[in-house]
């Protein structure tokens, strides 16, 4: 290493230490910050995109690829990745105990936010979301690399799964029956919430009931983001939820169809607003198919009727 690169690296490390990564939240980083910190050896960048071939044809230089379908969920059980698998994945991805891990992806960071939720469940520190995700990075014309990175293995150790971040069916049923003092946030589109459609356009109908969990309020995820894909200012998000009656005084459960969009809202409520939030990854595909649970279906749609 020449003196010059050494100096540059030291400067970069210093910049990482002093400059705020994001004006609004310690859990977000801006595209600008990330570009300046790509050579910082502490920073690990992980792409979680849902469309295959997106990472391969150009990703943020140095980023490694994590596949939602096979890496972040269990391949047999419907569950998040098992601890031993997840720890191996992180070490392979070069994540160490002292790493700053930045997650980003396509589709408005939905699956990257799922990643952030799983990282949090397993107690990994210093995990951040790239505000605006791939979309913003590309729109700003920042450079991409096409060669996949194989980083030196990291030494991170995961902690036992933190169940306080994850809601299960019983928790949601208790909330629906008003046996628990919990606020439910349905982050799907209004048409899904009202039962006019069983699933968003282009997505298979995986539930035999339409509608929502009784008592849930509808705050569609897209209301949290600006045109460029970044989160709106924290104060604005706080007000938006407060107007819907979600002010953090009661514990919250977020859900959607399969739990990925709701990870995005979970991230906003938990990380940006600091509320007590659990994500319900079973979401409507579990709840809407469960026998003997109450639903609310304002549109009155009946599955299979012609």
């Amino acid at each position: 290493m020449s003196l010059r690169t050494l100096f540059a690296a030291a400067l970069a490390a210093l910049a990482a230490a002093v400059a705020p990564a994001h004006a609004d939240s310690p859990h977000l980083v801006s595209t600008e910050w990330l570009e300046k910190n790509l050579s910082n050896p502490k920073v690990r960048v992980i792409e979680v995109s849902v469309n295959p071939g997106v990472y391969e044809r150009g990703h943020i230089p140095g980023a490694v690829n994590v596949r939602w379908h096979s890496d972040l969920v269990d391949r047999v059980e419907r569950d998040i990745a098992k601890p031993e698998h997840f720890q191996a994945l992180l070490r392979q991805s070069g994540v160490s105990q002292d790493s700053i891990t930045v997650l980003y992806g396509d589709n408005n960071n939905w699956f990257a936010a799922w990643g952030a939720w799983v990282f949090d469940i397993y107690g990994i520190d210093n995990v951040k979301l790239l505000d605006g995700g791939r979309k913003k990075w590309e729109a700003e014309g920042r450079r991409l690399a096409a060669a996949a990175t194989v980083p030196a293995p990291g030494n991170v150790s995961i902690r036992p799964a933190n169940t306080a971040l994850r809601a299960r069916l019983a928790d949601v049923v208790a909330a629906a029956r008003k046996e628990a003092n919990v606020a439910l946030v349905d982050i799907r589109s209004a048409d899904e919430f009202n039962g006019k459609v069983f699933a968003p356009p282009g997505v298979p109908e995986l539930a035999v009931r339409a509608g929502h969990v009784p008592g849930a309020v509808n705050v569609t995820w897209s209301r949290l983001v600006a045109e460029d894909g970044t989160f709106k200012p924290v104060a604005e998000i706080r007000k938006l939820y407060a107007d819907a009656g979600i002010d953090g005084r009661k514990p919250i459960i977020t859900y959607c169809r399969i739990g990925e969009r709701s990870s995005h809202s979970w991230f906003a409520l938990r990380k940006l607003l600091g509320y007590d939030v659990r994500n319900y990854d079973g979401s409507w595909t579990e709840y809407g198919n469960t026998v003997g649970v109450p639903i609310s279906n304002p549109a009155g749609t009946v599955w299979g009727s012609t």
Partner: protein
Amino acid sequence: MTVALRARLPGAAAVLIGAALALAGFSLSEVPGDGRILAFSLASGALFGLVLQRSRFCFYCVTRDYLQVRDARGLLGIVTALALGTIGYHAVFGAFLPVPQGGQLPAGAHIGPVSWVLVLGAAVFGLGMAVSGSCISAHLYRLGEGSLASVLALLGAVAGFGLGFASWNFLYLQAIQAAPVWWLPHYLGYGGSLLLQVAVLAAVAAWLLRRHRQPGTAAAGSMRSRRLSEMFFDARWPGFAGGALVAGIGVLAYLRVAPLGVTAELGSLARTLGAAQGWLPARLEGLDTFAGCATAVKETLLSRNGVFVGGLVLASLASALAAGEFRPRLPSAGQAVRAVLGGVLMGWGALVALGCTVGTLLSGIMAAAGSGWVFALACGGGLWVGWRLLASRAD
């Protein structure tokens, strides 16, 4: 004066088409979201069309040249494309998927399931090539040369795709669902797979060269031209030059967008048409989960493959005009029937084999896919049977 003017007309039209393609590329790049990719697809499609037309990169024609008069130059062009494409694909694979042994497949590469359905589909495709006179990609560039029979063949192919969709669920559940997907680097690593493929292709080339008989006509693409336009458009380009260019376009297309393929848009048209008419099963089991020439019910007018094929046809038209090879001709009744029938066979075969001579054979073998090699063998068999049948009828 008028004669001189008329002689210049095709050249002027070719320049106009070229300019229109360039303009279309610039405006496509402004499309929000997919613009860059659409512009690249148009440009690579146009380049592909130019190369196919100038080097007569037609799988059936070059095989027939060999079978009839032992002229192996065209087939050697295909072998060149496969060998250089193999090298380029392996270079890209190293970037996309650094470690090949983990059970994963490189994103988007045309590596398909191998079953008797692939063998049957490829053989029927080969038969269809012989019956209609060309494969689908060659019909597309011949469209640019004014071949009206190619219009019929392509319409037949759309109908064939419809039959393919109708038979898909049965074939999928019978064989395709449980069929293995063979990718050489899984077993041999990148080095082994690269060496094996290049060695096999070199052996094929050596064998073809031994059996090759040089025809009496002047060699293609001699360099006696004094003008640039003459150099490009006076004689056809040699087969190996076409093959090298096809390999280059194929590798770049895979790096940037998707492997080369010419049937996705045709199949999507058939699927959209069939779905709108209620002719297709409501669900095509597993079809959309395979890498290959994917079809989809069309939701937008501009698709990547549609733009690619559009560029191919327009560039081959410009190229044919510039070379004086644009000759609109009406097929005889017999030729028309053969074109449609062959088209139907090719459409069915391309759907159940998840691609044609470009999508499954070229892009498959370049990707070291077992499915590519199986397609090549079965398609060659079908072609030979068709060629024999036609030859015996002509006798």
